[in-house]
């Protein structure tokens, strides 16, 4: 309220503070902002340009759509004023209006066009921003403004070639802000348009070669040029030049430059894949950089660059990155590695090894569906069952804290435990494992405080399966008959019953799993239904086919008794 009063005051100092207060404290959602509309209207027609500018500034900062509609004609009038100070402010105010109320764009089109021919850099800059805004909103306007491309090219040339002008100069570059804005507008105008793109080719080449890249300013202009070249229909020579500039950026000592180089390369990795591949070495090196932002960009780009030919070397790098990367990037790295491994794995054994490696280093950060995916993968590679189960057994012996790994290991030991005992395996050195040790390992998992309930479920089922494969004596199961967790308790009771009442069926129920087909969500249901149909509990008793345990794709048959 005080603001409204101060704004209405005739004294400039009070007005100034009042408008400042309005900009800071009011926003368009508040009702009080409507009250100052009238003041703004009056001030816009004031003779003093500074009072006019206060009003313009406030309107551009917090003008609501309603206020904008009201005052748009005033702004249009001011755009044609003779005072360049007011013109530049009116231009940016018009930008705000167009953003708030799209239809009013039509109103400003003519004025914007004429403003381009001004001498004052501020006005030209405002005009370029306004035109950019109009073109982005409306494709018709875009067509109309394509005719301005030669003018824009002329202005740019003037800036690039012109002599030293102390007013606008920043480290040797003449008005970089204006240059970047013009480049962005050219990008929008040249997109998908051959003629416009041709008109700019020379200019872009000139800017790209002549701009001094030792300071940040020069690099800012070069960056914008590169983005423009890559976005319009430029000729191939120019594109190569642009990618080379990005390559040069990658080798720069300044972290900022490397960061933006990788950001831009990310944008073109889909289209100019080969060009980006050439810089793969540098990008992979950036994975080892200290800075978290640079690491993140390098990771995204590296994952995009993985292909069938470089999968082994890239995976080595990615795995070493995973062991040392910051925690917030772990899950992204893990899922990226899984995707890459799935698409380009050179061999099954390599694939399984990679997944196991990820599980041991970053087991806590992988997604939930990793476990069933891995299990499905293992069942599919029947020739590696022995190798896999040996490896998992050894992993389990060393560390049982990583839940996904423990779950997979339990499942495998349950399925293929007999292979552990035979001890012969071509892929890895033979180790004779006694059956008691196997059961001990599972018991450790069951009793460890680190195991989650679902892991315990896995271990319990595995122990049951081993009862048919290795040994007959499995009395640990009955202990869990009085467990607090309902899931475990139910399992334990059922399994116990399997021993006692339905012993004749135990072998059939706990048979080896068939190979899982990976086609749909409900695939496991289909498989286990087939299995359980061979087991009839009692004639006449309703058979409940495979209940999905825990709702994920885990395959364990539950026979309701």
């Amino acid at each position, binding site marked *: 309220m005080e603001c409204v009063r101060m704004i209405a005051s005739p004294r400039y100092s009070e007005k100034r503070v009042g408008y400042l207060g309005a900009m800071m404290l009011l*926003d368009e959602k508040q*009702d009080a902002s409507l009250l100052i509309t009238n003041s703004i209207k009056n001030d816009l027609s004031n003779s003093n340009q500074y009072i006019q500018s206060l009003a313009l500034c406030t309107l551009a900062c917090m003008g609501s759509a309603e206020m904008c509609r009201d005052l748009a004609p005033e702004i249009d009038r001011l755009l044609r004023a003779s005072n360049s100070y007011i013109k530049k402010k009116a231009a940016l105010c018009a930008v705000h209006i167009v953003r708030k109320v799209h239809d009013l764009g039509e109103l400003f089109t003519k004025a914007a066009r004429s403003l381009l021919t001004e001498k004052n850099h501020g006005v030209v800059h405002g005009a370029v921003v306004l035109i950019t805004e109009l073109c982005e909103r409306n494709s018709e306007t875009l067509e109309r403004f394509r005719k301005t491309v030669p003018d824009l090219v002329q202005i740019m040339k003037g800036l690039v070639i012109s002599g030293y002008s102390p007013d606008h100069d920043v480290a040797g570059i003449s008005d970089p802000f204006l240059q970047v804005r013009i480049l962005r507008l050219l990008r929008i105008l040249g997109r998908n348009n051959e003629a416009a793109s041709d008109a700019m080719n020379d200019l872009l080449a000139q800017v790209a070669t002549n701009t001094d890249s030792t300071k940040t300013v020069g690099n800012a202009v070069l960056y914008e040029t590169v983005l423009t070249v890559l976005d319009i229909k430029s000729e191939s020579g120019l594109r190569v030049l642009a990618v080379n500039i990005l390559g040069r950026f990658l080798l720069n000592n300044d972290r900022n430059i490397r960061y933006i180089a990788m950001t831009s390369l990310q944008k073109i990795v889909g289209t100019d894949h080969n060009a980006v591949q050439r810089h793969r070495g540098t990008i992979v090196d950036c994975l080892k950089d200290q800075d978290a932002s640079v690491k993140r960009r390098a990771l995204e780009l590296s994952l995009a660059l993985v292909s069938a030919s470089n999968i082994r070397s890239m995976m080595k790098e990615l795995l070493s990155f995973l062991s040392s990367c910051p925690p917030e990037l772990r899950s992204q790295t893990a899922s990226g590695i899984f995707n890459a491994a799935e698409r380009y794995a050179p061999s099954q054994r390599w694939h399984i090894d990679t997944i196991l490696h990820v599980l041991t280093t970053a087991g806590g950060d992988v997604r939930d569906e990793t476990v069933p995916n891995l299990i499905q993968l293992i069942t599919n590679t029947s020739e590696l069952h022995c190798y896999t189960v040996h490896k998992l057994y050894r992993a389990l012996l060393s560390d049982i804290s990583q839940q996904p790994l423990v779950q997979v290991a339990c499942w495998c030991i349950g399925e293929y435990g007999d292979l552990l005992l035979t001890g012969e395996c071509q892929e890895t050195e033979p180790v004779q494992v006694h059956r008691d040790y196997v059961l001990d390992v599972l018991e450790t998992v069951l009793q460890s405080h680190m195991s989650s309930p679902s892991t315990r479920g896995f271990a319990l089922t595995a122990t049951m399966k081993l009862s048919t494969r290795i040994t007959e004596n499995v009395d640990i199961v009955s202990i869990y008959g009085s467990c607090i967790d309902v899931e475990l308790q139910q399992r334990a009771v059922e399994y116990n019953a399997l021993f006692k009442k339905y012993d004749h069926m135990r072998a059939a129920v706990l048979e080896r799993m068939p190979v899982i087909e990976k086609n749909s969500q409900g695939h496991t249901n289909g498989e286990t239904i087939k299995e359980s149909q061979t087991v009839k509990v009692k004639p006449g008793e309703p058979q409940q086919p495979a209940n999905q345990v825990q709702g994920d794709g885990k395959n364990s048959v539950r026979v309701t008794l």
Partner: protein
Amino acid sequence: MNNVATLESAHDPAVSESTGILRLQGLITGLQGFIWAAYKMMRFLLLFSRQGKLRLQKWFTPLTDREKKKVIRDMMMLVLARPPRSCNFLQWRDLKIVYKRYASLYFCAGLEDKDNELLALEVLHRYVELLDKYFGNVCELDIIFNFEKAYFILDEFLMGGEILETSKLAVGVSMEEADTLQETMEEYMSKPAY
């Protein structure tokens, strides 16, 4: 993009006649989280000290107080945690954050996805130069005690999230003239009437 389009139409003045609907819109925007207007160069500019004290805040999009506080908290947390010689760019939600430390103050700007980060660094630098020229060897105290001047300078340099004037000289001249105008009026008004 679609999100923003529907929101812009939700801001249609024809609908927002009654405060009731305004409040509902506010509720919806609040529920949908942070709603940013599209296509601005800069969404906000913050200045804060190493100790986490906010010295200047300029918002170029309409946000509720709660949202503003959240942004400020997040920015301080992110930026103050960065080690000394790290990259000046961050990713936060869908925005690029550019920050630079000058003496004891952090200048932090939030940009759109398609903006030029290196140019934003130049913008921050230019603003510091303007402050320096105006105050003469500017330090944090100048900004604390003359914050309104800092805002005025910012308003001469940036408007609506875009650069207004690219010439250092012109900004300096307009500030001088505006100050003269202010003083003249004050002198005139406070002159004792004999």
